[in-house]
């Protein structure tokens, strides 16, 4: 565990930026609220109470859910937080994303950015969390990531609803000349019970919004909740079953042009030689312009329709520069392995005395293994796209994005306008998974909008561009060794993981003038922060930049460390002659929440039952994003290969605000992980990604999808995240099941390199 002494000697990487002293400044700023951006958005007769609530004179209630709705259901749950306290039903409110604004800063997204496990609650860890949260506010960082949206919104959005309700009540009391305590609220109506007189919220909204916000806000107790804790019908469902035009690709504006991009398939390099003449002469082509940004170089093709742009993009004859990084997957792998051997590394966990423990270890008690995972693409169903218009000095960007304030800033920069003259409209997203926290596609649209004389331009990437220009889940290699005791339990564990730094790579393309400092905990998360007690326990992260742009991919470092850590533990159980579940229960005895999750998963899946020949189960556990998750995978041998029959998931999320949505996210996360395990990899040759579309980078299909059984627990005293937590344990649970079935311990992904899946 990181100790106070180590922290004092170290500079910290704070989320996405390293700033010495930023925490103290943040605390000062923290006390000052940002202005309410809805003041500028009000329609005739509409009143606003705070950045989350608008009420019209006609009693139309709008709730702002200022986080990316990319499938995880966050708009519904955030709206429910406000609606609960406002005493209105969810179907009585209109939910909107709202404008890009510092007021919608996310303080939870960075809160767990420090080098502490979630369960460490000492003074230093808590100070760090507070400081990081303040820093998120200081940056005005409106963002969706780190499974943080609901944790961030839980207090402030309930408070927004409660404050608005109290103001409405106060205004009604004045109007009716009665005591506030004599009034009741239900269905957006205030009733004076003694006289039966009623006022709608809309009738007093204008008056109420002029009152001072209450200084003492009373929130409901969980026992009083009508909406929270119960599965709600999602507010975006109707639009999504009717094909409504809600996504970035659906944006349609008067006089709009269409465009696509063709960027260098070798990262960072410029075209050496290009002949645009053939492409420029193609029917429907308006203009071809160079694109030069921190994300890369290439061309934007503006046309009268998307198809014309796609065809012209293909017709550009271009020779790209040479890559200045390892050219192919083998060289990248060798580079990571060398870093593992020679790199300095940051020990994010260092319990006991690992070196001594191994110095005198008898050889037959030492287990060693090397694991490796490939780069992965996000492959959101909706390819990257954005629409922009630059007219009369005002830049407007319609973008399916996870980072509205950063998108606004970087688009303003490339278009040469002020941030104040830039508006970002965040659409629904056809998947995000971290990819849409990037700004490239929005910046490209902003750049092309400079070329269209005020006409809007919708820029849609081909799937090929999308796969070949991702910010990939980093490849990683880990070396693991353990010393087993006489009882078969590990006494000492030493883990060393080398991978490109996601944070350094992100800074290179977004804020190239900033240099990252200190360790990148994403390299070791999922390994260093797990609730196991082992006397000598060291986990070190080694940064190794392969030159390939890497980014945040659903569950980030947990996506590979979950596999590394939990497959290696499975190896230890096998070597020590222990049941993998029993072994974990012993090692995690200090953490009752973990124990309960594991016990529940074992009971649900009937772990330990004798299975018929040709069937087997695997187990894994990962604590990530504040939630404790165990998964069991059952596999069966079939003529067509190994079939994933069933997955059991048990998650302790602390407080479960919408069990229906949480269940959907747990299965979704697991399928996302299983998809990667049964066939995904991005490989490189000649500096370029070799895969380009779903024929060579596929994901799980319905006929491969297992049955699921999910249980949601609420034992831990802090709320955890939901959107990413199903992913990390899915891969090792499958790998461990494959081992149980075949006796093959597969130490690299995808598992399909060594076994076939049905």
């Amino acid at each position, binding site marked *: 565990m990181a100790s106070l002494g180590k922290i004092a000697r170290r500079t910290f990487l704070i989320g996405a930026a390293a700033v010495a002293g930023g925490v103290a400044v943040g605390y000062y700023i923290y006390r000052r609220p940002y202005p309410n951006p809805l003041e500028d958005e009000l329609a005739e007769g509409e009143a606003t109470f705070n950045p989350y609530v608008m009420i019209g004179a006609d009693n139309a209630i709008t709730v702002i859910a200022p986080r990316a709705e*990319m*499938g*995880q*259901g966050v708009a519904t749950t955030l709206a429910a937080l406000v609606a609960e306290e406002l005493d209105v039903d969810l179907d009585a409110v209109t939910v909107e994303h709202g404008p890009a604004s510092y007021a919608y800063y996310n303080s939870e997204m960075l809160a767990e950015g420090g080098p502490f496990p979630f369960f460490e609650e000492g003074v230093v860890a808590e100070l760090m969390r507070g400081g990081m949260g303040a820093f998120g506010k200081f940056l005005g960082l409106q963002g969706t990531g780190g499974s943080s949206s609901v944790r961030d919104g839980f207090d402030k959005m309930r408070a927004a609803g409660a404050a608005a309700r109290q103001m409405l009540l106060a205004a009604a009391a004045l109007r009716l000349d009665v005591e506030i305590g004599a009034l009741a609220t239900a269905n957006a109506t205030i009733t004076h019970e003694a006289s039966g007189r009623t006022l709608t919220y809309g009738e007093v909204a204008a008056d109420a919004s002029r009152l001072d916000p209450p200084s003492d806000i009373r929130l409901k107790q969980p026992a009083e909740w009508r909406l929270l804790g119960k599965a709600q*019908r*999602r507010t*975006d*469902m*109707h*639009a*999504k*079953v*009717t*094909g409504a*035009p809600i*996504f970035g*690709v659906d944006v*349609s504006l008067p006089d709009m042009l*269409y465009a696509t991009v063709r960027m260098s398939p070798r990262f960072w390099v410029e075209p050496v030689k290009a002949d645009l003449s053939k492409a420029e002469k193609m*029917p*429907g082509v308006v203009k071809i312009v160079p694109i030069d940004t921190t994300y890369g170089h290439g061309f934007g093709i503006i046309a009268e*329709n*998307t*198809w*014309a742009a*796609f065809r012209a993009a293909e017709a550009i004859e271009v020779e790209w520069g040479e890559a200045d990084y390892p050219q192919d997957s083998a060289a990248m792998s060798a580079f990571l392995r060398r870093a593992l051997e020679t790199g300095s590394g940051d020990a994010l966990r260092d319990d006991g005395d690992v070196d001594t423990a191994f110095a005198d270890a008898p050889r037959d008690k030492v287990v060693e293994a090397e694991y490796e995972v490939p780069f992965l693409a996000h*492959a*959101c*169903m*909706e*390819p990257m796209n954005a629409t922009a218009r630059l007219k009369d000095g005002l830049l407007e960007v319609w973008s399916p994005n996870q980072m509205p304030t950063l998108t606004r800033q970087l688009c303003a920069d490339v278009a040469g306008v002020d941030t104040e003259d830039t508006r970002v409209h965040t659409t*629904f*997203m*056809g*998947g*995000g*998974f971290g990819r849409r926290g990037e700004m490239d596609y929005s910046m490209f649209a902003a750049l092309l909008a400079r070329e269209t004389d005020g006409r809007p331009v919708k820029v*849609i990437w*081909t*799937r090929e561009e999308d796969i070949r220009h991702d910010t990939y889940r980093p490849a990683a290699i880990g070396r693991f060794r353990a010393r087993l005791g006489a009882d078969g339990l590990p006494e000492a564990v030493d883990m060393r993981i080398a991978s490109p730094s996601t944070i350094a790579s992100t800074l290179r393309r977004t804020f190239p003038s900033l240099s990252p400092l200190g360790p990148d905990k994403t390299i070791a998360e999922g390994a260093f922060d797990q609730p196991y007690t082992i006397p000598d326990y060291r986990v070190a992260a080694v940064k190794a930049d392969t030159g390939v742009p890497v980014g945040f991919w659903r569950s980030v470092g947990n996506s590979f460390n979950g596999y590394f850590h939990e497959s290696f533990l499975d190896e230890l159980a096998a070597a020590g002659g222990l049941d993998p579940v029993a072994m974990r229960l012993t090692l995690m005895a200090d953490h009752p929440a973990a124990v309960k999750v594991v016990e529940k998963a074992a009971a649900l899946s009937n772990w330990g039952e004798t299975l018929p020949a040709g069937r087997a189960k695997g187990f894994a556990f990962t604590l990530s994003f504040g939630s404790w998750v165990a998964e069991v995978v059952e596999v069966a041998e079939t003529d067509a290969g190994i079939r994933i029959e069933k997955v059991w998931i048990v998650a302790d999320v602390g407080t479960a605000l919408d069990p*229906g949505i949480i269940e*959907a996210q747990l*299965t*979704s996360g*697991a*399928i*996302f992980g299983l*998809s990667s395990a049964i066939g995904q990899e991005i490989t490189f040759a000649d500096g370029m990604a070799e895969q380009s*579309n*779903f*024929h060579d980078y*596929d*994901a*799980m*299909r*319905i*006929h491969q*999808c297992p*049955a*699921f059984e999910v249980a949601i627990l609420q034992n831990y005293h802090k709320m955890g995240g939901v959107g990413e937590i199903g992913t990390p344990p899915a891969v090792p649970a499958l790998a461990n099941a494959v081992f149980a079935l075949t006796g093959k311990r597969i130490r690299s992904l995808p598992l399909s390199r060594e076994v076939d899946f049905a």
Partner: protein
Amino acid sequence: MRLTVNGNPIEFDADPDMPLLWALRDLAGITGPKFGCGIAACGACTVLVDGTPVRSCALPVGLVDGDVVTIEGLAGADGLSLVQQAWLDEQVPQCGYCQAGQIMSAHALLQEIPEPTDEDIDNAMAGNLCRCGTYPRIRAAIKRAAAEKARTGA
């Protein structure tokens, strides 16, 4: 060029090589069918041509010979179609991007096989990719729609 889409005649001025998807989206403003891959590998663009599900991203508009139905044409005047209602009741969509295509494929399946087995569902739906992994609820919604179809004789 003239097509019938959702029962309405539509005039296009399109290159006959342009995929039906882009003619619908960019020329006719019908955006329910989505662009996912451009090579008929993901199913997000699925529409019906004379009742048969086709991947509109890979079908040149000049080769379309039949009435086109998109997600916009499924719902009747009285609200959602049976399949759409089942999708709503099972709360299927997450991001929702692939769901217009999923619903079109499911609609065509139930037209052909009113009471599909799990294997029928696998065969009909394997061409429709969902990155959110909504498959368990898709399967449940198809079964719900089939049961409702049997109950109401729809």
